C-alpha cells in the first residue's frame, strides 16, 4: 500500500540525515523533560502552591482561555522562527486574532481587558509581527538582497524599539495593566503563599502530586513522551502546535492540580500516536495482518498525511492498492470489506507473498505476539482503570457522601443538603448567613439565602473579614457579625464522621488570610504551638497537648466543638474524640454567650448557629435615666433572718 511505501521512504530519509537532526531532537526532548521534572520537583520541595489563578480572565466559561490565547501566538511565533511563514498562516492567524478579540470583548466582564492587560500583549505582538513579516516578504520580492538585508536589520531594530517603548509608556500611563501577581506566581512557586494566601488556600491550586499524575493518566504517563517523540520526528506546521501544547501543559499541570485539565487532551492525543506507532510496528505480520490493517487504516493515514490533503490521498489509495498490491491476504481482504474502496477491489487483488515480512528487521513472531499481548493488556487495564476512576473519583457529587459498611452496605450521608434545606425552610427569607467562602454557592443555590462571601468573591478584604470573625474570640466576633448584619453562622465539622475537608482543617488558611488584612488583630503565631508557624501537620499532632488559648477561644473552635465534648462516639474512645484529627479535643466544657445552636445535621457535619440579638444573651443594658429603683422599704428575707 501507498502508506507503507511512503513510510519506508521517510524512514530512510531520517536514517540518511541521522547525526545532527536526531541529536537536536534528543536535546529538545531532554530539555522539555528537564523543565517539566524540575518544575515538579521545585513544587514538591517547596510544598506550597504555585499558582496560576485564571479567575480574573474569565472569558465566558473558564479563565483557562488565557492559556490558549498565549499558546496560539506562541505557535505562530515558533512557526515564524522555523521559517514556516505562509499566506495560509497569515490569513488564519489574523482572522483568528481579530474575530477572537471582537467576540471576547462582547462579554461584559472582559470588556477592554484583551487590549489592556499584559497577559494579552503576546497575542497582539505576534499580530503585529505577522504584518511585519508579511510586508518584508513582499518587499523581498521587489528589492535586491543587500538592500533587503539592511532594511531588515534597521527596520527590525527600529520597530522593535518603538513597540517596546510604546508598551512601557502605556504601562506607565496606566493604559496597559502590568503583569499581575497571579502571573508571577506561575513562575515563582512561593509567590502566592506569601503575597496572595487566598489563592494558595484553594485545594485545586496545590501542586500536583505524583500520585495524582498516575491516578489520572495511568499508563499514558509513560506513553505520552513516546508520542511526543513520534510527533517531533515527523514535524509539520500543525504538529508544532501539539508539541508546544504538550510542553507547556506539562509544566502547568506540574504547578497546579487543576491544570491537569489542560494536560489530559494532549496526553490522549500523543499516547494515541504512540500506541498506533507501536502497534504498527509489531502487528505487521501474517497472523496479525487483520489488526495491522485496521491500525493502518485508522492511524497511519491521518498521521502521515495532512488533513487538508486528504481528498488526494483518498483518490490515490485505490490506485496504489492496485499497483503495489503487496499486503493483501484473504483475511485482510475480508476485513477490508468494511472499507468501500477495498470492497471494490477485493476480488481483483492477486494473492501475493508478503514483501513486508521479508523486509522486517528480524522481529520474531514470538516477540511480536508477546508485545502485542502486553500492549493490549495494558490498554485493557487502562480502560478498567479509567472506568473505575470516573465512577469513583469524578462521578459522585461531593455534596452527598457515601460510606460503605463492613458488609458492603452503602450508607448515604446527606448532611449538606439536610442543612441547606433546613435553612431554606426554617429561616427568614432575608436571613444572612456567614460561612467560609467555599460554601457560598451551595448556600445560595440550595438554601436560597444571602451569604457574606461566596466562591466568586473578588474582594479579598471581605473574605479576610470573615476569616477574622472566625478566628477572633466570641465577643470580638460578635462585633464583626453585628456590623455585617449576620443572622446565622454555618460551619462544617467533620469530627464525628472523620470528614477531612472541614473548617477546622481549613482554619489555618482563614487565619493566614485574616492576618494578611488585619495583621494587628490576628497573628498566625498566636494560633501556633511552640512559636512554630502552624501547618496542617503540626495542628494535627499538637492539637491535644498544649493548644494555644487563642485557638481554644476562637469562634471557629467553639462553633465546631460546641457540646462535642459530651459526645461519646463509641466505646473504645473517650468522649470528645475527634475522628478527623484523631485526638481528644482540647477544651470540652465551654458555653456560647452570643450564639446559640440553631441546627446540627444528623452526623454533625454541618452546624448552624443563630446570632443572638443584644437583649437575648445578657440582661439588656438600661440607660441610667430609665432605670427604676426598687422601693427602699423592701427588705430581703436574708437580711431579715439575719436580724
Amino acid at each position, binding site marked *: 500500500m501507498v502508506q507503507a511505501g511512503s513510510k519506508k521512504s521517510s524512514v530512510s530519509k531520517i536514517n540518511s540525515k541521522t547525526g545532527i537532526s536526531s541529536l537536536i531532537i534528543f536535546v529538545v526532548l531532554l530539555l522539555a523533560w528537564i523543565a517539566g521534572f524540575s518544575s515538579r520537583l521545585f513544587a514538591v520541595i517547596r510544598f506550597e502552591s504555585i499558582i496560576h489563578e485564571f479567575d480574573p480572565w474569565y472569558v465566558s466559561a473558564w479563565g483557562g482561555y488565557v492559556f490558549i490565547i498565549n499558546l496560539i501566538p506562541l505557535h505562530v511565533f515558533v512557526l515564524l522562527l522555523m521559517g514556516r511563514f505562509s499566506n495560509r498562516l497569515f490569513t488564519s492567524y489574523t482572522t483568528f486574532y481579530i474575530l477572537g478579540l471582537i467576540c471576547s470583548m462582547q462579554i461584559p466582564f472582559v470588556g477592554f481587558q484583551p487590549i489592556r492587560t499584559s497577559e494579552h500583549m503576546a497575542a497582539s505582538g505576534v499580530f503585529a509581527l505577522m504584518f511585519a513579516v508579511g510586508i518584508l516578504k513582499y518587499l523581498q520580492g521587489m528589492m535586491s538582497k543587500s538592500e533587503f538585508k539592511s532594511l531588515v536589520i534597521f527596520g527590525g531594530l527600529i520597530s522593535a524599539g518603538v513597540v517596546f517603548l510604546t508598551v512601557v509608556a502605556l504601562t506607565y500611563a496606566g493604559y496597559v495593566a502590568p503583569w499581575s501577581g497571579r502571573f508571577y506566581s506561575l513562575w515563582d512557586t512561593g509567590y502566592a503563599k506569601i503575597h496572595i494566601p487566598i489563592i494558595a488556600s484553594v485545594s485545586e491550586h496545590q501542586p500536583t502530586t505524583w500520585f495524582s499524575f498516575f491516578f489520572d493518566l495511568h499508563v499514558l504517563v509513560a506513553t505520552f513522551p513516546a508520542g511526543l517523540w513520534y510527533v517531533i520526528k515527523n514535524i509539520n506546521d500543525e504538529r508544532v502546535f501539539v508539541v508546544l501544547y504538550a510542553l507547556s501543559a506539562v509544566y502547568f499541570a506540574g504547578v497546579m492540580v487543576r491544570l491537569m485539565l489542560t494536560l489530559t487532551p494532549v496526553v490522549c492525543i500523543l499516547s494515541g500516536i504512540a500506541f498506533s506507532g507501536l502497534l504498527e510496528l509489531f502487528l505487521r505480520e501474517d497472523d496479525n495482518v487483520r489488526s495491522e490493517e485496521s491500525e493502518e487504516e485508522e492511524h497511519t493515514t491521518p498521521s502521515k498525511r495532512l488533513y487538508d490533503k486528504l481528498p488526494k490521498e483518498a483518490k490515490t489509495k485505490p490506485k496504489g492498492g492496485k499497483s503495489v498490491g503487496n499486503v493483501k491476504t484473504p483475511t485482510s481482504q475480508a476485513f477490508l470489506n468494511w472499507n468501500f474502496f477495498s470492497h471494490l477491489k477485493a476480488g481483483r487483488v492477486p494473492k501475493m507473498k508478503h514483501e513486508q515480512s521479508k523486509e522486517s528487521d528480524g522481529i520474531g513472531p514470538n516477540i511480536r505476539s508477546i508485545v502485542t499481548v502486553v500492549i493490549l493488556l495494558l490498554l485493557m487495564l487502562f480502560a478498567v482503570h479509567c472506568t473505575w476512576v470516573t465512577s469513583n473519583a469524578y462521578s459522585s457529587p461531593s455534596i452527598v457522601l457515601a460510606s460503605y459498611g463492613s458488609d458492603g452496605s452503602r450508607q448515604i450521608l*446527606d448532611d449538606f*443538603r*439536610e442543612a441547606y434545606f433546613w435553612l431554606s425552610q426554617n429561616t427568614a427569607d432575608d436571613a444572612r448567613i456567614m460561612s467560609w467562602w467555599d460554601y457560598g454557592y451551595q448556600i445560595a443555590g*440550595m438554601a436560597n439565602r444571602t451569604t457574606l462571601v461566596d466562591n466568586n468573591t473578588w474582594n479579598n478584604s471581605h473574605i479576610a473579614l470573615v476569616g477574622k470573625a472566625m478566628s477572633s474570640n466570641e465577643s470580638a466576633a460578635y462585633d464583626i457579625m453585628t456590623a455585617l448584619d449576620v443572622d446565622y453562622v454555618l460551619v462544617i465539622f467533620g469530627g464525628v464522621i472523620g470528614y477531612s475537608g472541614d473548617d477546622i482543617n481549613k482554619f489555618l488558611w482563614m487565619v493566614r488570610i485574616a492576618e494578611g488584612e488585619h495583621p494587628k488583630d490576628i497573628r498566625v503565631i498566636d494560633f501556633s504551638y511552640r512559636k512554630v508557624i502552624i501547618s496542617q501537620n503540626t495542628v494535627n499532632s499538637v492539637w491535644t497537648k498544649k493548644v494555644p488559648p487563642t485557638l481554644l477561644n476562637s469562634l471557629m473552635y467553639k462553633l465546631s466543638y460546641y457540646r462535642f465534648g*459530651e459526645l461519646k462516639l463509641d466505646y473504645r474512645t473517650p468522649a470528645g474524640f475527634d475522628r478527623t484529627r484523631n485526638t481528644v479535643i482540647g477544651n470540652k466544657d465551654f458555653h456560647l454567650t452570643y450564639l446559640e*445552636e440553631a441546627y*446540627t*445535621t444528623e452526623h454533625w457535619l454541618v452546624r448552624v448557629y443563630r446570632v443572638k440579638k443584644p437583649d437575648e444573651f445578657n440582661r439588656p443594658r438600661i440607660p441610667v435615666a430609665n432605670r427604676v429603683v426598687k422601693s427602699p422599704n423592701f427588705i430581703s428575707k436574708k437580711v431579715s433572718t439575719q436580724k
Partner: protein
Amino acid sequence: MYKILALLLCLTYVTALEKVNNQLINKNVERSIDLTTQLVKITSTITLENTGRESVRNFLLVLEPNTVGNVSYSNVKDSLKDDLKIVRIEVDNQKDKTFYNVLLKQPLDAGRVTTVVLEEVLTKSLIPFPSSITQKEKQLKTEVSLSSRTVENYTKLKPVVQSDSTITYGPYGTIQPFTQDEMIIHYENNAPFLTVTRLERSIEISHWGNIAVEENIQIRHTGAKLKGPFSRYDYQRDTGTAHHSIKSYRTILPASAHSVYYRDSNGNISTSTVRPRKEWIELELRPRFPLFGGWQSSYTLGYSVPSYQYLFKNPSGEYVLNMRIIDHVFDDMHVEELETAIVLPVGVSDIKLNTPYEVERLGDEITYKYLDNIGRTVIKLRKTNLVEQHIQDLEITYNWKPHLLLHEPILLSIALFLSFVCVIIYVRLDFSLSKSEHSKKE
C-alpha cells in the same frame, strides 16, 4: 395559670321547617370526644323523641358559634348506619347560629323515638399551652378523652369522674335549648401535630395506560413552638418514643403504585422506604430534618398507577375517571388547603364533574406537555380544611376519540419526514463558491 379554651358541651337539636320545632326533644345525648391525636373527634349518639302530634321528616342541627370554623367534617348516620343528607339552612330569628337541616330517611311519627349518630371532626381546636417549649419539655394541650394519664387540669363541672385516661362528665338532667357550657382540659399530648399547609395534587391521565400522580406537599409542625436552641446532642441521646418532634411518618399509596419518587428542591431525599403490603403500599417518609414545633418542610411525592383500575368506558362511549380527590398523607392528617388538578388527555369534550362533597371549582386551564400543539384541559379544584374522612373518589366523565392517541406519533413522524426532505433537498444543492478539485477532474 392555664389558658382557657372554650368548647361547648351541649348541642341543641330541634326540628323545624324554617323555624325551631319545640316538639322534638333530645331524649338522651351521649358524646364521646377523642383527643388522642391532633384532631378532636366527637361522636354523639342522640336519641330523638317526637312529643308532638305530627310526624317529623327532618331535624335541625346547630353548631356552637365558636367552633364553626373548626369543623372540618360532619356526618350523620341513622340507626341503620345509612348516611343522612345534611343541608345548611338559616332559621328565622336565630341568625347568629349556624343550622344544618338533616333529612330523616323515614318520617318520625308522633310519640316515636329514633337514634342518630353524629360524627364530627374538629381541627385547630387543640391549642398548645404553653405555646412554646424547649426541646426537652413535654407538649401540653388544652382541651377534651386523653392520650395519656398526665392530665394537668380540667374543668370541674360536676358530676365528673376521671379514671385513667378518660374523664366522664355527667349525667346532667334537663337542659334548656341552646344552652352551652365550656370544657377545658389541659393534658399532655405528644402525638404528632403535623399539618399539611398546602397540598397540590396533580393527576395526569394518559390513554396509553398510565395515570401519573404528583403531590407537592408543604408541612408544618403546628404543636407547641420550639423555644431556644436545638441541640443535636440532646436529640440523639433522647431515645424515648414519646417526643413531640416528628422524625418520620407513613404515607399509604394505592397497591398498584409504581415508580415512586420522593424529592424536594434539592433533589432526591435519600431517607425513605417503600414496603408493599397486600392491600396498599406503605411509604415511610423521613423529612430531611426532624420537625420541631413551628418548623416546616416541603417535598414532592409522585407515583404512577395503571389506568385500567381508575379509567373506565361506560356503555354510552364516555370515559369515566374515578380517582381520589385527596389521598392519605399521614394518619390523622389535617390539610389546610388542597388544590387538585386533573390533566385530561388531548381533545376531550363534554366534561362532567361529580364530587363527593362540596368543593370550589377553579377555572379550567390549558397545559402543554411534550409534543402538544392542541393543549390539554386541566380541571382545578380547591378545598380548605380537610381530614382523613375526605379521602373519597371524584368522578369525571368525558368524551374522547381513541384516534387522538395517534396524534403525537403522527406529528413526530411528519416532523422527521420534513427534516429528511430538507436534508434531501440540501444535499442536492451546490452552495460552493468555487468548484472543488475533485469535481474539476471529473
